[in-house]
């Protein structure tokens, strides 16, 4: 056997389960191997821990005294006198420990702690573990009840057995008495049978013999009956013994099962504890997340307020932009007009003519600039009375005695007016200019009074 094989035997030896042959081999090896000795010592320590699965049982008070007495009386070796303690009948009812413990179950915690359905898996696991524990507790209770019933049965069997034994004892006693009688009678008969004297004793002896003979027969019959009864009782006793064996085997099995169930309970209790720890951790996380949500919600409100404020500002700015755009347009129109005026003044063929007011508007004057080539004309009038409602001023170019309209215009509050216009080719050869007051919208030929005239040339 190599060293590894020796090591494989150590566990069984530590448990005290090594077969004799293998044990001898191992012990021989251990004598020389300190490593295996040390390992065996540790394994024995581990095996001894199994004793803690058993619950302690307080010994009766009398036993302590006997033990202490025992060591004082010890002679030169092992205990000598039989040490059986008498067991009074009342012990039968006294509860004593069983091979297995009842593990105290941790209280089941409620699986509902206000969590959302997202953690229902763990809740379910906790409930399931709790239910299984409850089932196992119920199974243990059932087993305990069955054990009680078995115990009752054993008690009854025991009673019956004792009754039988008592009967047997009585009958044995009766048998002994009968046999004693029988032997006495036999002796008496033998004594009477010795031949001694005359007829009279003979007749008495005959009657006596007959009586003894019949008594003999009675006793034999009685004996046979008792023997038969004895056999029956013996058979009963055997049957009850067998039954007792069976029940004890049943108890042993139940005990093993009990061990296993308790181990299961311990395992599930652990699982329950772990699940609850997980639930607690998730509850914490939940709280943290809710705090975060609250914080983000208030931040959201702040941001929305800011957005509203910026939106208002934007609207105001857009109104401002529109206003400035319109103003820009107005200014650009103005610029275009001034450029036109500028070009009219700088045109090489343009002439400036001064117009004077007539009797209708003596204080009025005007300056007219006219470019024969392009037909562009610009009129700047001053101090014209405002046109009455329904009327408007109109400018005429007179070319070859024929007046041609150059457009209508109105004055501003200060009596000033500006007109820019262009006449078509046919009327460009103008020699005189006039402004009349016409109905609103203008006419094709002058009808109203003249207000401004160019000097006659």
């Amino acid at each position, binding site marked *: 056997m190599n060293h590894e094989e020796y090591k494989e035997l150590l566990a069984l030896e530590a448990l005290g389960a090594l077969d004799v042959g293998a044990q001898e081999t191992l012990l021989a090896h251990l004598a020389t191997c300190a490593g295996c000795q040390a390992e065996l010592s540790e394994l024995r320590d581990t095996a001894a821990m199994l004793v803690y699965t058993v619950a302690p049982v307080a010994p009766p008070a009398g036993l302590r005294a006997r033990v202490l007495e025992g060591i004082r009386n010890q002679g030169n070796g092992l205990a000598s006198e039989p040490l059986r303690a008498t067991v009074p009948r009342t012990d039968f009812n006294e509860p004593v420990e069983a091979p297995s413990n009842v593990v105290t179950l941790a209280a089941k915690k409620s699986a509902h702690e206000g969590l959302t359905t997202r953690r229902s898996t763990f809740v379910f696991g906790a409930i399931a573990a709790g239910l299984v524990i409850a089932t196992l507790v119920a199974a243990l209770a059932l087993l305990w009840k069955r054990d009680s019933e078995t115990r009752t049965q054993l008690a009854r069997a025991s009673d019956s057995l004792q009754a039988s034994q008592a009967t047997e004892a009585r009958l044995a006693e009766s048998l002994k008495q009968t046999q004693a009688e029988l032997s006495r009678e036999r002796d008496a008969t033998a004594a009477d049978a010795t031949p001694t004297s005359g007829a009279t004793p003979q007749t008495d002896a005959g009657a006596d013999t007959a009586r003894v003979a019949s008594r003999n027969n009675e006793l034999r019959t009685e004996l046979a009956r008792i023997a038969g009864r004895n056999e029956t009782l013996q058979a009963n006793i055997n049957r009850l013994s067998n039954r007792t064996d069976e029940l*004890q085997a049943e108890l042993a099995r139940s005990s093993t099962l009990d061990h296993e169930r308790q181990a299961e309970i311990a395992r599930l209790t652990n699982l329950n504890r772990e699940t609850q720890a997980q639930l607690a951790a998730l509850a914490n996380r939940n709280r943290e997340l809710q705090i975060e949500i609250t914080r983000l919600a208030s931040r959201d409100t702040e941001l929305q307020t800011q957005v509203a404020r910026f939106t208002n500002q934007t609207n105001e700015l857009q109104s401002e932009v529109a206003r400035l755009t319109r103003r820009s347009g107005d200014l650009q129109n103005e610029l275009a007009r001034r450029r036109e005026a500028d070009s009219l003044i700088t045109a090489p063929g343009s002439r400036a003519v001064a117009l004077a007011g007539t009797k209708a508007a003596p204080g009025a004057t005007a300056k007219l600039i006219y470019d024969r080539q392009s037909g562009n004309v610009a009129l700047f009038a001053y101090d014209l009375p405002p046109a009455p409602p329904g009327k408007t001023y109109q400018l005429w170019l007179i070319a070859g005695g024929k007046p041609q309209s150059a457009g209508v215009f109105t004055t501003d509050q200060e009596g000033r007016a500006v007109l820019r216009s262009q006449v078509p080719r046919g009327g460009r050869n103008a020699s005189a200019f006039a402004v009349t007051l016409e109905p609103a919208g203008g006419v094709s030929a002058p009808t109203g009074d003249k207000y401004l005239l160019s000097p006659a040339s």
Partner: protein
Amino acid sequence: MTTAPEHTQHSDAELIRAIARGDERAFARLYDLHSPILLGLLIRILRDRAEAEDALQEVFLQIWQRASDFDEARGRPFTWFVTIARSRAIDRLRSQKSRDRVALETALSDVVPPRRDASDDAIQSEHNEAIHRALAELPEEQRRALLLAYFEGLSQSEIAARLNEPLGTIKTRARSGLSKLRQLLQHLLDVR
């Protein structure tokens, strides 16, 4: 950790040394401390209260006589006197030709759950819980092999016959189971 006065291994070793010197008070103290667990063990193995009480007397007598044999370097005190108790019980179990019928009525008491002692040792219940938890972690067949070997006193071949398994399988299960148990209980075993 515990509120009850701690009875350590070290003090057990001291008691045994005192007993080896013939100190009767130390012996009485050892009895008071450990007779309950040993009686529990004997009842568990023998399944007979009266016989267990007889065996307890023999066990303590042996402790008294062999105290000088105890070597602290070779093992824990607890292991030492538990081994004496177990050996005694297994021997009695094996030498019985037939069970004592009168023991019937006392064997009934096996079935009842343990009566809680008023002075439950805190270390006792801590170890109790630890071993139950550790056993629960073993695979069922390993656990069964350990319990059959230790408490029923069955040998390797008897266990193999009982469970209808090959010898080698039983050896492996015992080895794996005990090894795993040692690992799980390391924190309790290391206090030397």
